[in-house]
């Protein structure tokens, strides 16, 4: 019996798919799993797990939160970057924030649970918190002293033009005091919950302020990573944490600094990537050499 051509073609296709599934979908990956059992490679193929006293405490490739049960930083440890993976550094729910460069207006609902912070406010509040924790200047451009985005909604008489009639600091909810008292001669009001000042016709205007152009708190300390699992921080972020960690552990800051540099990797071949400090490995070394009192 001869099959019609269209059917024969699909049968050939199905047979081809099955053959390739066995070859590429089973033989190839399983052979690679077998290669991954080779001594020396097996640790890596299994996820570069690190153990302390026989207890697995993580992977040297995957970052962790060094926070207590309430999410507050544990001061005797170097802190990782902010993370958007689940509640932070959750490998079962990896993610970035995906917020855009002009995400600068918080939603300010009547029910505080429905409010969300803009990316700018997240950056500002992290900068303030890190500054306080590590005793450095937490100010940044476009941030208010109370750690939210310094953004005004400016209302003009004729929409986009004409004299300014009203100005609202959109990310500061009453009773907070606006970061500037007046703008172009008009007094600035704090925001009221439940208002969308952009939709009401306000021109969204971020205010640069007089913070230093290069803030004391480094960029990686205030931004969420791509993976949400970034195992590294920049040497600059490690540097501002040294004094706090030394104090907490009763150690000499110079000794801590030495430990940081031992766990800092430079650029691969001198030009790939960026210098980085592996936070988990650094903290493990700290516990080893300078156990907390």
């Amino acid at each position, binding site marked *: 019996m001869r099959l019609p051509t269209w059917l024969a073609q699909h049968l050939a296709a199905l047979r081809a798919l099955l053959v390739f599934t066995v070859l590429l979908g089973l033989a190839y990956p399983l052979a690679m799993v077998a290669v991954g059992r080779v001594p020396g490679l097996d640790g890596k193929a299994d996820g570069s797990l690190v153990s302390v006293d026989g207890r697995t405490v993580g992977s040297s490739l995957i970052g962790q939160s060094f926070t207590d049960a309430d999410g507050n930083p544990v001061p005797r440890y170097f802190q990782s970057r902010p993370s958007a993976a689940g509640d932070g550094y959750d490998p079962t729910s990896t993610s970035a924030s995906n917020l855009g460069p002009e995400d600068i207006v918080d939603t300010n609902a009547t029910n505080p649970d429905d409010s969300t912070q803009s990316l700018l406010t997240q950056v500002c509040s992290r900068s303030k918190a890190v500054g306080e924790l590590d005793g450095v200047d937490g100010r940044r451009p476009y941030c208010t002293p109370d750690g939210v985005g310094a953004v005004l909604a400016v209302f003009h008489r004729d929409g986009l033009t004409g004299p300014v009639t009203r100005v609202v600091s959109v990310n500061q909810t009453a009773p907070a005091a606006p970061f500037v008292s007046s703008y172009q001669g008009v007094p600035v009001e704090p925001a009221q919950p439940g208002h969308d000042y952009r939709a009401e016709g306000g021109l969204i205007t971020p205010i640069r302020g007089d913070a230093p152009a290069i803030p004391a708190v480094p960029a990686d300390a205030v931004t969420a990573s791509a993976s949400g699992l970034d195992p*590294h921080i920049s040497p600059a972020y490690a540097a501002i944490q040294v004094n706090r960690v030394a104090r907490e552990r009763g150690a000499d800051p110079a000794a801590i600094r030495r430990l940081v540099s031992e766990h800092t990797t430079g650029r691969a071949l001198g030009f790939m990537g*960026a210098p980085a400090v592996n936070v988990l490995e650094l903290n493990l070394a700290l516990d080893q050499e300078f156990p907390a009192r």
Partner: protein
Amino acid sequence: MTVTTAGVLFILSLVAALVAVHKPFGDYMYRVVSGTGHSRVERGIYRLVGVNPAAEQTWGVYARSLLAFSAVSVLFLYAFMRLQNHLWLSLGFDPVMTHGAWNTAVSFVTNTNWQWYSGESTMGHLVQMAGLAVQNFLSAAVGIAVAVALVRGFARSRTGELGNFWVDLTRITLRILLPICVLAAIVLMIGGAVQNLSGGTDVSTLTGGGQHLTGGPVASQEAIKDLGTNGGGFYNVNSAHPFENPTSWTNWLEIFLLLMIPFSLPRVFGRMVGQNRQGYAIAAVMAILALASITLTNVFELAGNGTVPQAVGAALEGKDVRFDVSNSATFAAATTLTSTGAVNSFHDSYTALGGGMLLVNMMLGEVAPGGVGAGLYGLLILAVITVFVAGLMVGRTPEYLGKKISSREIKLASLYFLITPALVLAGTAAAFATGNNSTALNVGPHGLSEVLYAFTSASNNNGSAFAGITVNTPWWNTALGLCMLLGRFLPIVFALALAGSLARQKPTPASEGTLPTHRPLFVGMVVGVTVVLVALTFLPALALGPLAEGL
């Protein structure tokens, strides 16, 4: 070493490596696609499939074989995901719901690898390695096969025969993709990529919290994900995940892998048409566009304009420290230029113009250098259009490689070119008309960019995203699935039809009136035509999105 110097060296080292492999690897691929000897394994496969490897196919049969194969693949993958809870290594995950399974099946068969799901919480290991990763190989081989068939159309004359789809598929898979993947997977493992069948490890962290470290056959999938310009990550965060892309040098390797085949295929083209200089001209067009785009993306990201990047002091949101800004930007440009769609940083948080550049890269039609195969056939069709435009401008006979570009050829080329813009713009308009744009995470111009990016990515078979947008809804999964399907197979059918029509012609000897297609003038014209076509088509949409946000 300054950040800029390091970033420039990173790009130059990639260029040097690509130049170094272009000739030997191109020659190797040429021998693979034009050889007639079959290995024992290959003969076994032909016997199992039931095809005669010596039988050549007309363009129609070639296209029908390809479409049948792809249709069966979509159905198989769909069933696989729907039934995953009954299979091994499912990690306890539920079956994938209908619209999601449709979207993902189409996504992987079309070499798009758009992902609405998080790999680590949706797909079991068996579906990933024996379902999705198999299509990573096969969809890449299909793309290269179509490019080879089109080039045969230029190289042959007075024949209807374009080769045999099954032979091309088998040889490309076994002789090009698989050996490189074996090597790359091992090197990635040395870098730290995981490769196991574990369901993961629960650990108690230093401060007493819990962490579930995921496992999986990642390195094997990562290799073909990059080499085949597929881009579908094992995990949600794709090549940003340290288990997929552990170090700055694996990052270099992954970028190299995704550019390696597309930049070497012009050599295959040159060899097949018997004039290497024609291949160099095509490679030059790709290189000019790619270098311009990579440079601009780096400039925009390192400048870090925009309110949040200015407040931060760098465009570091959505980027990992080990890649930093520059190497992230280079990866992003390479992945959008090649229709890969893997990401090592999150494009949604890029500066307005940096993110806009990534959109433009895809809108170029994925030709600089484009996806494996798709880039070459896309660019050859643009060359055909250029020859036609040049003929109109200076009164030359429209000919390319000794083939007359008559009305049938130019109709096919125009239809090819019109499909993706139509899908992108109609899709974006439909999302807004039906209110489905409301699933965007960001508001204002950036919200429009998210929608535009989604349709651009799906229709051009890229697969990257402005990932803030929620696309796991029946409407989005269905609409983007259709865009991926039509955006892949309609152009393929037109390309094969063009190949058939070119192969039937007898060669026209070059005359005084023939425009030389290997000179810098022609290279410049193809670049110009490509950019002008994109600008004319997409400028209004770009003006409402990234340009409104960034200027």
